[in-house]
């Protein structure tokens, strides 16, 4: 019964993803009709300028959008379930502030090597999570409340340093733009690095989906059902951090997606992580790609940071869902 419904949901979302890719490839400063794009993939002759736009500009950007949206949503869903906390998002354990500091440091110091900023952001995120986790650890256990508080404390501390760097730096504009998040300038190189980290990260999280369900019964009940709770939390946090760090290193801090997409998807498909995880991945990807398409077209040729779009259009939709549901939204 359930699995059939799940199959239907998955197939629908995959079709939607396909349509999204096709349509958003068409949209831009230069409109390229979908029929022409289909032709291009079937090997027909199209203007070479269009071919370049599709293959070198739009497609890699769409792919990165799908990956980043998927990573943020899955990380959000995972941490919300793990902590049984509706406020949890991928940034709650310090990733955003760490990545932000890493990137700000790189930009402020004027290093221009390719991939220097993503690499520094990744290192920053890793250090932040490591700090947060170890501060919260009490005798081999990591209580959720302590973890959330230590995440907030570390975030404020690192953000203070980032602000200081911004204040002192001549590249203020660049740092601000990075912090707001965006997919501008993505190329296949970015996709090649992000893809394995995010794809396999999500896949492994998916393999633990049933255990995630059991965690929703409470940590003690989960332990009675055979889950090594502390180790499980550690592994899941590591995976969620890995995919988030991989995403934000290339995209900057895109807010809202990781917090709200899991809630929206949970309303649509239910709390079972075996469908929630794959649905969040696809839905998050679709959402971010459309948001990014708006970001690059709305004031073309100027690009808006996509974080503005995700929150500006996503928040009212979420408020609508909150108000139209009579039941409590989380759970």
């Amino acid at each position, binding site marked *: 019964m359930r*699995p059939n419904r799940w199959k239907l949901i998955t197939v629908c979302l995959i079709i939607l993803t396909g349509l999204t890719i096709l349509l958003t490839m068409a949209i831009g400063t230069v409109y390229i009709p979908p029929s022409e794009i289909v032709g291009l993939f079937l090997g027909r002759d199209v203007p070479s300028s269009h071919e370049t736009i599709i293959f070198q500009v739009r497609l890699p950007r769409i792919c990165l959008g799908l990956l980043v949206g998927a990573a943020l949503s899955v990380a959000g869903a995972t941490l919300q379930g793990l902590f*049984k906390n509706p406020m949890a998002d991928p940034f709650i354990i310090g990733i955003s502030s760490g990545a932000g500091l890493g990137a700000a440091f790189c930009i402020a110091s004027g290093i221009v090597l390719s991939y220097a900023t993503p690499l520094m952001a990744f290192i920053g995120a890793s250090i932040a999570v490591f700090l947060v986790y170890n501060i919260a650890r009490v005798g081999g256990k990591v209580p959720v409340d302590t973890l959330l508080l230590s995440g907030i404390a570390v975030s404020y501390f690192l953000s203070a340093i980032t602000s200081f760097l911004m204040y002192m730096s001549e590249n203020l504009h660049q740092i601000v733009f990075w912090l707001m998040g965006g997919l501008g300038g993505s190329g296949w190189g970015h996709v090649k690095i992000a893809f394995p980290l995010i794809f396999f990260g999500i896949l492994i999280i998916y*393999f633990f989906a*049933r*255990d995630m*369900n*059991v965690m*929703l*019964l*409470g940590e*003690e*009940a989960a*332990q*009675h*059902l*055979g*889950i*090594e709770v502390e180790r499980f939390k550690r592994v899941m946090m590591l995976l969620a951090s890995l995919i988030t760090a991989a995403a934000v290193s290339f995209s900057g801090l895109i807010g809202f997606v990781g917090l709200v997409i899991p809630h929206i998807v949970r309303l649509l498909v*239910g*709390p*079972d992580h075996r469908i929630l995880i794959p649905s969040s991945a696809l839905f998050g990807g679709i959402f971010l790609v459309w948001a990014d398409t708006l970001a690059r077209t709305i004031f073309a040729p100027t690009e808006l940071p996509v974080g503005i779009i995700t929150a500006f259009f996503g928040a009212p939709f979420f408020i609508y869902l909150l108000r139209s549901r009579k*039941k*409590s939204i*989380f*759970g």
Partner: protein
Amino acid sequence: MVMLKIDSIDFYYGTKKVLEKISFDADDGDIIGIIGPNGSGKTTMLRVISAIQKPRSGSIFLDGTDIFKLKQKELARKLAMVSQDNNISFDFSVFEVVLMGRTPHLGRFDYEDEHDFEIVRHAMELTGTSYLKDRSITELSGGEKQRVIMARALAQKPEVLLLDEPTSHLDLSYQLEIMELVKKLAPDMIIIIAIHDLNLAARYCDRIVLIDDGKIVSIGKMEEVMTRENIKQVFKVDALVERHPITNFCHVVPIGNEFKKE
């Protein structure tokens, strides 16, 4: 033949001693009632027996295996616990929640199959929860939820079942029903119940462990343990302990402190 051997357990919360020299054995078919006042260590004892808490010293053997050396999953195939606090705020159906009881028996890449569904259906029949199958766990009353959690524990197919105040949320008829169920299950497993209701304990438990302040005061058959002196010492209440003339069940009537003069 399953055997549980609890051997001089000492347990501390921080520096506070909560359990001291707790020892007793249990065999297949035993229903053991743990009674004692609030804060005497009943729940803690169950948490230690279920390996949620590690004791400072002492050991617990199940079928000759030290339970603290077992993997959590291996233990969960042998031992199930129904806790008091089961607040599930997520919108799972009752059937799904009971099905989660099969978790310790499933491999990482397994899906539940007909065999698991059969076990789950049986567990729900035993606990009288079949009719709730498609309801959301969030909509149930305390008593219904209690029985669903019980069904989940049974779906684990345990050799040892630990129940922490299983009747506390239930009205009279379900209290009896749960205890009758316990009796029905007992031949195939060891059941240890922390229980407040002395009359239910007296009626259904083969052996009683009376604890006070983390120590065993008395252990044995109901007549040996539930004496007027023991009850007075532990609960600080004068009580009549007698066989009911009609039912012939042993029963305890607290009469309070006015009768002290007598």
